């Protein structure tokens, strides 16, 4: 067990600094990364898909209770939040464009605005959670819902919290990754030649946006 310090675990690099040694060139690496991220998004579709399936089953079984429970959600906050998230997606798309064009400060600006909008979304979301808490609409915590549909309404709110909670978790992960990208941008990592991480994390961000695009009508607009 003689550990020779020089022989680091990093394998022999045939890399030119732009792509890793297992790839032939930067284009191959970027295609691989993009495909990898899309495959990951496919798994995410199925992850949320389980919830969507459950939601569909119960909503078709208890349409009345789901309609009534849904009217307890704040449609104004929900709409504002949808707008905020769509805007953040736009901002992320602009960030990718800035990276492609090699405009570093513009890139930094758009990344910052994406992260800030994401944080704003979360802030609004948590305000809504606080309201639900006060109204005793959190399942498991002295849930109280007038009327005999109470248990089924509780099912609705179980879905509400599970779906928006997991969505919020994805948002938080996204924001953390964008902050990392901001640091890397400051360190001058990206340019027209290399911006794969911005693209792939951008894909992730848009995907989280798409999930919300479905959650919003399913939760807020059941029966108005």
């Amino acid at each position: 067990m003689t550990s020779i310090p020089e022989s680091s675990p990093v394998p022999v690099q045939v890399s030119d600094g732009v792509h890793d040694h297992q790839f032939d060139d930067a284009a191959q690496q970027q295609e691989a990364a993009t495909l990898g991220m899309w495959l990951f998004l496919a798994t995410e579709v199925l992850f949320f898909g389980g919830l969507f399936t459950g939601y569909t089953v119960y909503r078709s079984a208890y349409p009345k209770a789901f309609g009534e429970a849904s009217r307890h959600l704040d449609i104004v906050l929900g709409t504002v939040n949808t707008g905020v998230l769509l805007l953040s997606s736009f901002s992320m798309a602009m960030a990718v464009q800035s990276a492609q064009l090699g405009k570093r400060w513009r890139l930094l600006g758009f990344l910052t605005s994406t992260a800030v909008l994401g944080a704003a979304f979360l802030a609004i979301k948590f305000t809504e959670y606080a309201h639900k808490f006060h109204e005793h609409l959190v399942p498991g915590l002295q849930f109280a819902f007038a009327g005999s549909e109470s248990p089924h309404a509780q099912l609705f709110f179980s879905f509400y919290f599970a779906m928006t909670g997991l969505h919020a978790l994805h948002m938080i992960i996204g924001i953390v990754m964008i902050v990392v990208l901001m640091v890397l941008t400051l360190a001058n990592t990206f340019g027209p030649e290399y911006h794969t991480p911005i693209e792939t994390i951008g894909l992730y961000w848009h995907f989280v946006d798409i999930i919300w695009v479905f959650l919003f009508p399913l939760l807020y607009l059941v029966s108005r």
Partner: protein
Amino acid sequence: MSNTIVSTRTYVATFVLLLVLLAMTIAAAYFPLGRFNWVAAMTISAAKTALIASYFMHLRSSHRLVWIAACAGCFWLALLMILSLTDFWTRGWLQP
């Protein structure tokens, strides 16, 4: 494919369209259409998804494989839903 740079104008147009669709989905929710409320909401959401995916996510200019990956996720979700619902929606059929 990432070398296709999408213009700012396209991005702005996409965003504005998304806002229009958002307004539509809310408006549609207040029309009493029965079951079609749900259909309308999902159709509009699908349209929004198509916009985000094609423009923001550059699916339009992406490799065919990426298309397949994107569709695979949706297709498998459809399998999960359809086959699960064949159970839930045919439960009462045997009873008179």
